[in-house]
């Protein structure tokens, strides 16, 4: 087996919660990412799903070092990103680019498309100065934006077009790995389809490696070869997309898959729903043992005390559940 492009080991990102204005004191810790191990191979699209607050965005932000991981390692192209700082980090970052959810907030409103796309090119000396214009045009072609838009400002574009600009900006540095954090959640269905197609084309044509984060399982299903499911800061299941979808092994994945509304009245009528009780608990105060046990239909006494490790569950799949062998 080849070495993965990105290899995350036991990554933890904790945030202290402070109270008090003059003399802030710690009143707790939010364990946003709490011991995640994942790897992404070159050319692969890994989908990361989970509900809001499960830590999927923090994981992505920790990888590009927008937040500081507390513990663990992130090996990327032979270097541990978790230990880098200053100049080394700046040199590593062009290889990792992020696309954010809200294209209204992630683009500078006072910069034209040209400014936005030219800046990374100049900062990192990707192309000689006299070729910048040509390169910007090439990027715009790549994401399907007409050249005449080059002098326009973000407010003159629709949401879908803005997301195209954000994608072009991410591609400008010719990254090895793209981290797309809910890239289509803010878009309407018809525009969402355009952006998903664009991302898929780029992955196919350029052999991009991507970590695609979404709360929408159908989006991930459409794009990813492998899927990782997160719950309260931990990965509970990871494996090939087909298997995770059609034969989920973790009780949480089962519930998640069965909660996705299907656009087919016949299927909807005949399906068995696993309805979960309650809401996900607060990550500041996570339950002991398996984080899912208070909502799990199969939980037993051991689940409350023992933390289940992520173990092989057959067919290149890993699951973190103590009762894996006994589940139906």
């Amino acid at each position, binding site marked *: 087996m080849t070495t993965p492009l990105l290899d995350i080991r036991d990554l933890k990102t904790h945030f202290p919660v402070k109270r008090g204005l003059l003399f802030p004191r710690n009143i707790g810790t939010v364990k946003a990412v709490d011991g995640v191990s994942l790897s992404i191979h070159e050319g692969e699209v890994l989908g990361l799903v989970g*509900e809001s607050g499960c830590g999927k965005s923090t994981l992505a932000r920790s990888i590009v070092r927008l937040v500081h991981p507390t513990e663990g390692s992130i090996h990327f192209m032979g270097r541990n990103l978790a230990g880098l700082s200053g100049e080394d980090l700046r040199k590593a970052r062009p290889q990792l680019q992020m696309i954010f959810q809200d294209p209204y907030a992630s683009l500078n409103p006072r910069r034209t498309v040209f400014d936005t796309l030219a800046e990374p090119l100049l900062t990192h000396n990707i192309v000689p100065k006299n070729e910048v214009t040509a390169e910007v045009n090439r990027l715009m072609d790549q994401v399907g934006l007409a050249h005449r838009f080059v002098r326009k400002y973000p407010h003159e574009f629709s949401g879908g077009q803005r997301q195209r600009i954000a994608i072009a900006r991410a591609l400008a540095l010719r990254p090895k790995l793209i981290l797309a954090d809910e890239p289509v959640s803010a878009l*309407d269905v*018809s525009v969402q389809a355009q952006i998903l197609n664009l991302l898929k084309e780029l992955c196919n044509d350029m052999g991009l490696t991507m970590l695609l984060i979404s709360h929408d399982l159908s*989006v991930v299903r459409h794009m990813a070869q492998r899927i990782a499911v997160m719950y309260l800061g931990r990965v509970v299941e990871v494996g090939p997309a087909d298997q995770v979808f059609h034969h989920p092994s973790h009780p949480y994945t089962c*519930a998640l898959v069965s909660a996705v*509304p*299907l656009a087919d009245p016949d299927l909807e009528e005949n399906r068995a729903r696993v*309805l979960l009780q309650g809401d996900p608990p607060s990550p500041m105060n996570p339950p002991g043992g398996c984080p899912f046990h208070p909502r799990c239909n199969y939980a037993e006494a051991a689940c409350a005390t023992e933390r289940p490790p992520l173990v092989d569950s057959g067919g290149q799949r890993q699951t973190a559940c103590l009762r894996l062998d006994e589940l139906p």
Partner: protein
Amino acid sequence: MALLEVDNLKTYFHTRNGIVRAVDGVSYSLEAGETVGIVGESGSGKSVLHYAMLGLIPQPPGRIEGGSVHFDGMDLVQAPAKALRGVRGKRISMIFQDPMTALNPYMKIGSQIMEPLRIHEGVDKKTARTQAIDALEAVGIQDAEKRLSMYPHEFSGGMRQRVMIAMALITRPEILIADEPTTALDVTVQAQILELIKQRQQDLGMAVILITHDLGVVAGMCDRVLVMYAGRFVEAASTRTIFNNCKHPYTRALMDAMPATQQTSEMLYTIPGMPPDLSQPIPGCAFAPRCAHATDVCHEKPTQLDRISDGHHAACHRLGDLAL
């Protein structure tokens, strides 16, 4: 007689950039106890239509330019404000997409739930309190009594939406209008809330109007579906017919653009272009510029909802010769 009868309702916004025809001649009827889904993308007018029905459009800039909404012998469009107040929040209730902004952050949950009872039914505080506890329990909130004295920020998103539902249903309305009730929620919570709406609907026998952009939600909830585009209905049919035998190219396009969890095709269908600018007059079919099947007549002549079979209508010039 239908419970609610909307006839040729038009709601325009008079803005600096011209008159925006947000709802441009919409008719439909709702029977007691049924669930109707209103589907469309943002800006299609699906919310404005229902706000207009209940007199919730700020005027100006909005204005109801014509049409009527008949409910129990009364035209809600013409009705004086006082009469409308007796209907809104009592006989027709509404829940909104974002339960955080729909709840008053300064008011305790209990007072907010009791408010409709106190205003509409003149119930005394003690009775209202008992009913509020019952209402919270009916939507699956534990420790209801303790919860009454809490504020909205102490509740999670799913719990807030439960509170909204409890509040909307406390007066036992005949119609519940749910405007994207689960869009802000996670899928597992969404499944809980939809299940709850279904269950309360069975208990109370009310009709539900479900406004959504998610065809998946519609498939599991609705008896009938109305598809809206650029301020008009383009197709209306039973849920099964919409999913298995839709006749309007826009409906088809919407379905093909959705990534499905069942099968994965390489590329999704995309609708070229953008929704029309509603401040400009549209001579023909509003969807024609983006439609793969448009002919000359589509660009020139306006469409109207034509009957295909009982309960199935679509607004398309090419109904006869198009196989979708």
